[in-house]
């Protein structure tokens, strides 16, 4: 619907929604008004000029909607017939219902007393549209908001983190600096107070996370990305799972072709190559190939 709605309809919807909004926000500045509707000021002025021409049949000053906005602040009068807040579309309701799903996961920060409220509101919305669209157990969204808070308030987080390369869960205190995503995987970077250095963490590997109590002073450290490793590999089988693990574009993979693989730790790389079950074969550098061979041999020994 986002793309297909044509301009006049989009404007009509906005005009109808402008009236009740202005009635409850008399004297709002043009700039704020445009912000609320997420349009440019020019578009908003055009909207107001159009709305000014609307009213009850007869269309004399007695019937027309009366708007004043020359001063940069908007007031509205004589708009009673359109004072109703318009009913929501299914898509609008879906956006609210999904947003509530996320809040539901965030009740740890919102306070559990809101649980019932959120459930009641979500049910009310879903009853109106009867559509099955939901967000379930996606802890990453909750984690993301805690990390944003950590960055904004400069408060460290207490985190239980699953290190996939060592296959271990560890507890750490980290002050987050920033988010980034690479190949559709989200990371955050921060100073790890436990290991006293800058580290990168994958959001989806966080087991538990909460804001730490204390307001620690952030140590003055040089930000540096962990050095990543690049290896050359040959594609031996077209395999979606391997492509996704290494963040390779599907279209770039050709049977027998070469690809460059990136990893942040050799251990993760070796494990991922093993998991590719032969669809990707590392050609160089030699020390990685040797490490992979050793890894295969020690695993095979278990089956002898």
């Amino acid at each position, binding site marked *: 619907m*986002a793309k297909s709605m044509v*301009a006049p309809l989009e404007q*009509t919807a906005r005009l*109808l*929604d402008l009236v009740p909004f202005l009635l409850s926000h008399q004297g709002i500045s043009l700039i704020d008004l445009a912000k609320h509707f997420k349009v440019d000021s020019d578009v908003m002025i055009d909207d107001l000029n159009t709305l000014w021409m609307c009213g009850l049949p007869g269309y004399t000053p007695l019937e027309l909607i009366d708007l004043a906005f020359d001063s940069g602040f908007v007031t509205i009068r004589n708009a009673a017939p359109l004072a109703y807040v318009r009913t929501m579309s299914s898509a609008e309701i879906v956006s609210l219902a999904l947003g509530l799903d996320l809040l539901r996961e965030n009740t740890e920060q919102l306070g559990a007393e809101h649980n019932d409220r959120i459930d009641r509101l979500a049910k009310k919305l879903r009853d109106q549209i009867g559509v099955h669209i939901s967000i379930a157990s996606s802890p990453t969204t909750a984690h993301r908001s805690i990390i944003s808070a950590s960055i904004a308030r400069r408060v460290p987080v207490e985190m239980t983190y699953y290190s996939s390369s060592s296959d271990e869960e560890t507890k750490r205190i980290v002050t987050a600096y920033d988010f980034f995503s690479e190949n559709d995987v989200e990371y955050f970077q921060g100073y790890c107070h436990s290991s006293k250095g800058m580290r990168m963490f994958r959001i989806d590997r966080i087991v538990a996370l909460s804001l730490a109590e204390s307001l620690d002073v952030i140590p003055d450290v040089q930000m540096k990305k962990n050095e990543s490793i690049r290896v050359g590999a040959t594609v031996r089988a077209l395999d979606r799972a391997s492509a996704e693990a290494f963040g390779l574009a599907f279209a770039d993979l050709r049977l027998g072709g070469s690809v460059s693989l990136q990893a942040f730790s050799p251990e993760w790389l070796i494990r*991922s190559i093993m998991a590719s*079950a032969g669809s990707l074969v*590392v050609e160089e550098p030699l020390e990685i190939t040797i490490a992979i061979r050793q890894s295969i041999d020690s*695993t*095979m020994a278990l089956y002898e």
Partner: protein
Amino acid sequence: MLTVSRKSERLVNLTIALLATKRYLTKSEIFRTVEGYEGAPEAMERMFERDKDDLRSLGIAIELGTFDPIFEDEAGYRITPSSYQLDLGELDGTDIALLSLAASAWSGAALERESTSALVKLASMGIDSDSDALSLLTPLVSATNENFALVTDAIIRRCEIEFEYVGADLSKQARRIAPYSMRGQSGSWYLVGLDREKDSLRTFRLDRISSEVKVGKKANAFDIPDQLASDSDNEAMEFALLRIRKSRGHQLRSLATLIEPGEEWDDISLPIVDASWLLRVILWHRDDVIALGPSALRKSVIDSLSELRVLHG
């Protein structure tokens, strides 16, 4: 730009006239009094039909009726305030604050436009938002996939969709689906729908759709069954028996239905939902996990290891 404004001006005027009237307005009354209807009668007729469709697409229901059926008056039109007006039942300031927070989650994501207008409507209800009751953490939806809004729209309107899907072997498959539901899980969006070709329920990950989703023109093209048989309802499921080194293999342990602790190793069993996924995870854990059974699983692990060894020889 001028024509755009003229059309929306006419639509707003029509809405005002039909909302404000206590009785049904006949077509000729509308053409005579509502600003913007001009030209030959057939032209106005066509214009009015289009305008009615347009208002309907904005969710505005136009009622057709007569005041006095006995005298067979000409049918007329009106919009009843009760159908036009938003009705979310009783809401207080905290409800409004929660709903507004829910809408803000779409900042920069797929339903941003819809959530913006929802937010405007919430703010127009004249209920003071009690945001002090809430902490300031705003969760953010991670749905920037451009097909997200298209699929959502298709589910709401029950239109069939077509797209190209990347298979496990990277082949591109054309799919025609009746979309039933969508859920976000572990950072990905999954679409569940009836595959029209295969006539069975399938799950698709949104980021594996490699084309733009084509939404069929026909609305209400299918019914969504009340109970969706889920993929995991399969009863005749096989179990894998794995031996895992102590304090290793957290991912596999979390799926275990049975754990038998030992000295250095623990034995666990878990249902095999996706055999190829399980094979990869076992290989990924290297010498921390041994596949004990069933024999087909054990054999595929050994075969894969042998192949890996040859390839990296």
